[in-house]
């Protein structure tokens, strides 16, 4: 990737949209760590009882092995469903739009990002943006944040209010808001999933997987 500089702290103040989520504590590295641990605990709480019950009943009464298999399937499926929910935030929406408008929007978005990010966006539909909280990937209706060290990725559902905008315009809206106030952006956005990047990667569309690899690489540096 080209020379990248971190998304800034707010230059003149917080993101104005924070007023609509005034009850939320402002996101920081510490709140991200806490939220990540909570997600891990929740995943374990969903998985361990099914695993334990599945193994226990199979051992105690082998005739219940079919039930045991169902329980083990639950233990596998629940974390997968959460990861799929996370992957959905950057799923590309294919809606027939005005090609000219999309082209103009791409031009504006392209002016805001570097050459390598433009190429990555062209291949994946996602914009890579380094920040203080980690490395971001922005889509048209959501964002991924790979924390420094790339041990965890947070998936956020966030988008532009109202109106039919070209996809690149939606992404540009998120990019500008992120650059205005990164912590504010993460506070306004709704977290859909947090977990290991490999868990998310399995549920992403192939192009988004490439973008996630690039973000993990950038966050690992």
């Amino acid at each position, binding site marked *: 990737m080209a020379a990248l500089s971190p998304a800034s702290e707010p230059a003149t103040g917080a993101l*104005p949209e924070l007023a609509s989520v005034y009850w939320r504590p402002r996101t920081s590295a510490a709140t991200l760590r806490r939220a990540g641990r909570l997600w891990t605990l929740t995943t374990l709480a969903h998985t361990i009882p099914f695993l334990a019950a599945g193994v226990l009943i199979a051992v105690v009464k082998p005739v219940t092995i079919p039930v045991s298999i169902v329980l083990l399937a639950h233990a596998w499926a629940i974390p997968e469903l959460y990861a799929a929910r996370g992957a959905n935030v950057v799923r590309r929406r294919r809606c027939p739009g005005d090609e000219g408008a999309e082209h103009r929007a791409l031009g504006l978005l392209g002016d805001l990002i570097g050459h390598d990010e433009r190429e990555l966006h062209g291949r994946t539909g996602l914009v890579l943006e380094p920040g203080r909280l980690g490395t971001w990937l922005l889509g048209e209706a959501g964002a991924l944040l790979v924390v420094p060290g790339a041990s965890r990725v947070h998936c956020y559902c966030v988008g532009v209010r109202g109106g039919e905008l070209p996809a690149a315009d939606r992404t540009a809206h998120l990019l500008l808001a992120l650059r205005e106030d990164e912590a504010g952006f993460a506070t306004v956005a709704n977290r859909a999933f947090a977990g290991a990047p490999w868990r998310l990667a399995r549920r992403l569309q192939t192009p988004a997987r490439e973008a996630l690899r690039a973000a993990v690489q950038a966050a690992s540096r």
Partner: protein
Amino acid sequence: MPRLIRMDQSGHTMLAEWTVEDPASVRAAQEAFAHQLEDGYFGVVSLGPGRAEHVHELPLDAAQVILRRPIAGG
């Protein structure tokens, strides 16, 4: 020449251009900017890679001022 552009359904629309030497163009740009703020847009100036600033008044020395809509968690 500095430009005021709005991200909208058309990709983007240029609402005004101004030069400080032309007070009429400045006034027109300021009025257009104020009107868009009333309509719920936010003014943003890109400050280079990774940085942008939310502006409440039209910065006359900026090369480009972008108007964006509010974002929200989905």
